[in-house]
């Protein structure tokens, strides 16, 4: 049975790891943007990728 109703609640602290990870990937995204990559991604996304749909 549950034992916790009489136990003191554990203090939950803010985890820092997610913020470090998110910041690191945000920086990576910025580097990608700085190199002009989104324009290339857009160029690819606007064309029918025949390979992607199995007929290329």
């Amino acid at each position: 049975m549950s034992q916790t109703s009489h136990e003191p609640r554990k203090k939950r602290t803010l985890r820092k790891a997610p913020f470090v990870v998110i910041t690191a990937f945000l920086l990576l995204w910025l580097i990608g943007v700085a190199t002009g990559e989104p324009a290339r991604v857009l160029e690819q996304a606007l064309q029918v990728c025949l390979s992607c749909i199995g007929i290329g």
Partner: protein
Amino acid sequence: MEAARKWIQVIVAILTNGSWSFPFTKTLYQGPLKVICAPGLNCYSCPAATTYCPMGSIQQLLGGLRFALENGQYYFGFSVLGSIGVLGGLFGRMICGWACPFGFIQELLHKIPSRKFRIPRMLSHGKYLFLLLFVVVLPLVLVDEFGSGSPWFCKFVCPAGTLEAGIPMLLLQPNLRSTIGLLFLNKFVIMLLFLTWAVFSSRPFCRTACPLGAFYALFSKVRLIKLHLDEAKCTNCKACHHVCPMGVKFNESPNDPECITCLACMNKACQFDAISLEIGGIPLAVPDRGLSPAGKP
């Protein structure tokens, strides 16, 4: 909460496939929104797609890397990796459970009444192989005489691409039908296998073959939003085992890479309030007894 999740799945599927002019234009959406990364697996050659597929895009960028470098363009896929990395850091595989159109399709198929089968846990390693080999290594290493690699996962495996893009494009553009060959047949059979499997087992593609799911799974311990197990409250009754669509034994593995945070264990199974949703370690929600009957695994 389950109803909210279903609504979010529908809304995301509509938003990422929101261009419905294709019956008239007979081709893809050509607008600027396609610079935005789709959170889930959603083929960007789908005529209705308004965003780009991160897996397809990474393969294309890696396949064209040699050519790009020769032209002084440093397209390593950082913007794509950064986009899905931020999403992974925030939500991890919660995206699979809440925002992936192909996951949603599999969930709907699994509602078809039939005998249901478990998926052996060891098959879950397959998706990491697909991520490493088909998405990264093969497009980068196996190149043609011009130095271009192929999007191996899209070309030979991806059932989402066949369903969302291949079939609709063949219907829209009759001239493409003459190009159907063994390649399409292979992908069509793979798609049929996964869709049929989804009727009998829960989310088979997500669990065994999805490279995007494999990528998000890498964030299982560090993601911002995740489920928390209060070990003091847990009685190891194993009720959470029976409701999990991903085969996770939550009380034994609270940071399981397979957890898609669908909240079934929290809302439908645990009667002891041992499972809660947290943001960065801070509790966000308690079990929602009002919307889902408790104790009915």
